[in-house]
């Protein structure tokens, strides 16, 4: 039985630690603090935790005002609300003036589950990547979350970090050198590369293990930072393995696959396939059920790898 660890708890804990280390860290929430786990910070630093109610646009603008006065605001809510209804605020109040606001959103993707399409975030990476000055990170497990949140706090500039709702398998057993914009080569391989992040990373590793039994040697890259993309890692993958599959819990349009494809086409075109949600909204269901239904599985990744390898 694979051990699963909560990413959201990791966020809540790390935020609290950061709050103890730096009095300029402030936190905003939109009536979801028990879900986003900013309650931990709120309990110890109530004067630095601002409950904004179900008013996400105002939350982002307020975070911008705090950042303009030297605070380091972490603004949290569900990913769909953090990006869809706040897009103009992210654009005008945060990205355009390049303010040091961290938007850390939970409930990314469709693994949100039973709440259904209104609460799934399948566009958030496309939206945030479209904002100049934004750094966009998708974390895969609890350890990566701790590292990424710390890196986000250190980084100066607009930052979006996406977390999942469900607990996820452990990928990183110890802390490691997380660097924004630097992909991690989790598995060596020479026949193809899977570029993945977030919840799809563990599925990418499963696919690679399965493919190995078929004699296909697959590199796996954890592309936690979608923007700025680690273009060098992508180019090396294209040059050294000759075929790339991307895997993300997001729409095909505008997400990790799109961003990787731009680099591949520009520098070294190789066969590519994309495991992503195909231009549709999902529905209510259990997380695993939805991931299966919408093709976000290790089998889908393995099939895609076989396809690109055959096209080399």
């Amino acid at each position, binding site marked *: 039985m694979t051990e699963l660890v909560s990413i959201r708890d990791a966020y809540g804990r790390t935020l609290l630690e950061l709050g103890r280390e730096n009095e300029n860290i*402030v936190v905003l929430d939109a009536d979801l603090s028990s879900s986003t786990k900013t309650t931990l910070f709120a309990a110890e630093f109530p*004067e*630095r935790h*601002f409950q*904004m*109610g179900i*008013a996400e*646009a*105002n939350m*982002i*603008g*307020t*975070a*911008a*005002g*705090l*950042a*303009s*006065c*030297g*605070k380091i*605001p972490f603004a949290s809510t569900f990913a769909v609300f953090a990006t869809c209804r706040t897009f*103009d*605020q992210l*654009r*005008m*109040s945060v990205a*355009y*003036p*390049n303010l040091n606001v961290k938007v850390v959103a939970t409930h990314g993707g469709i693994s949100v589950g039973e709440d259904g399409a209104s609460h799934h975030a399948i566009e958030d990476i496309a939206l945030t990547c479209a904002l100049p000055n934004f750094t966009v990170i998708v974390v895969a497990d609890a350890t990566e979350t701790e590292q990424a949140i710390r890196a986000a706090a250190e980084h100066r500039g607009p930052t979006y970090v996406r977390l999942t709702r469900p607990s996820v398998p452990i990928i990183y057993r110890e802390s490691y050198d997380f660097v924004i914009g630097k992909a991690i080569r989790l598995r060596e391989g020479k026949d193809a590369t899977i570029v993945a992040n977030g919840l799809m990373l563990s599925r990418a590793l499963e696919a690679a293990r399965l493919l190995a039994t078929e004699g296909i040697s697959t590199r796996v890259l954890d592309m936690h930072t979608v923007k700025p993309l680690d273009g060098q890692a992508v180019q090396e993958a294209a040059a050294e393995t000759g075929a790339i599959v991307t895997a993300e819990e997001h729409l095909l349009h505008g997400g990790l696959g799109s961003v990787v494809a731009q680099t591949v086409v520009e520098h070294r075109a190789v066969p590519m396939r994309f495991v992503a949600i195909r231009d549709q909204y999902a529905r209510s269901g259990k997380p695993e059920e939805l991931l299966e239904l919408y093709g976000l599985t290790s089998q889908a990744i393995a099939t895609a790898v076989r396809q690109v390898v055959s096209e080399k």
Partner: protein
Amino acid sequence: MTEETLSVSELQGKARCLRCHIIGMTATAGSGHPGGSLSAADIVAALYFRVMRHDPHNPQWQDRDRFVLSKGHAAPVLYAALAESGYFPRELLCSLRCCDSPLQGHPEMHLLPGVEASTGSLGQGLSIANGMALAGRLDGRDYRVYVLLGDGELDEGQVWEAAMAAAHYDLDHVTAILDRNRQQIDGWTEDVMSLEPLADKWRAFGWYVLETNGHNMEAILEALATSRRVKGQPSIIIAHTTKGKGASFMDDNLRFHGNAPDREEMARGLGEVRTEERCKVCGVEYPGPC
């Protein structure tokens, strides 16, 4: 920081300066929003030349009062006030909206000293002002945050989110000023999307509400002074104004919301606003439209 306190008539003179600059710079740029800039000139003059604690030689002074131009299209009045205050040379005003100018069509906070927030997409400034006030409270600083809103802008829901939050957090260091010039692009506000009863609405949101004649300097100063004495809640001054105030042909003339005066209109407008005395001090000759 200005050491001397300007008299009411000196402030009125400053407001005339701002009006001159607004007419000149928008005409020269060939575009811009003179109407909604002119309606705010007296308010902005009162703030920058008498009421606000700020230092043009130290734009990052942590204890400064902040001014957020939430109605960002009125950038000309802000730029004029900053120039007259000494944040940058007045001559730069001739470059409004030019490609390589720091005087962008709507204010950008990193391009020009003294601009506190990047605005232009309406409805966002009050949220930003609230954030600034919260930061000040956390840091134990006493600065005030003034935010100028347009009345058409109140159509935006985010304004009301921010209004709720300001009252919830007892932000008595936030003073909002509403430039109630009664017009927006598609016509009178009450025809487009009725706002009244406005004072009642703000009171219902937990704000201390003042109303004033937005072109009477004494009344403006009194309202600002009263707002500074309000404790435990944010305050709003509903300033009744006229769009285009200062040039008779621009008065309440919707055409000048987002259209610049042409050369002949510029000359006419400047002629109405200018006095001999101010022209000697200012010295900026606006070339007018190309």
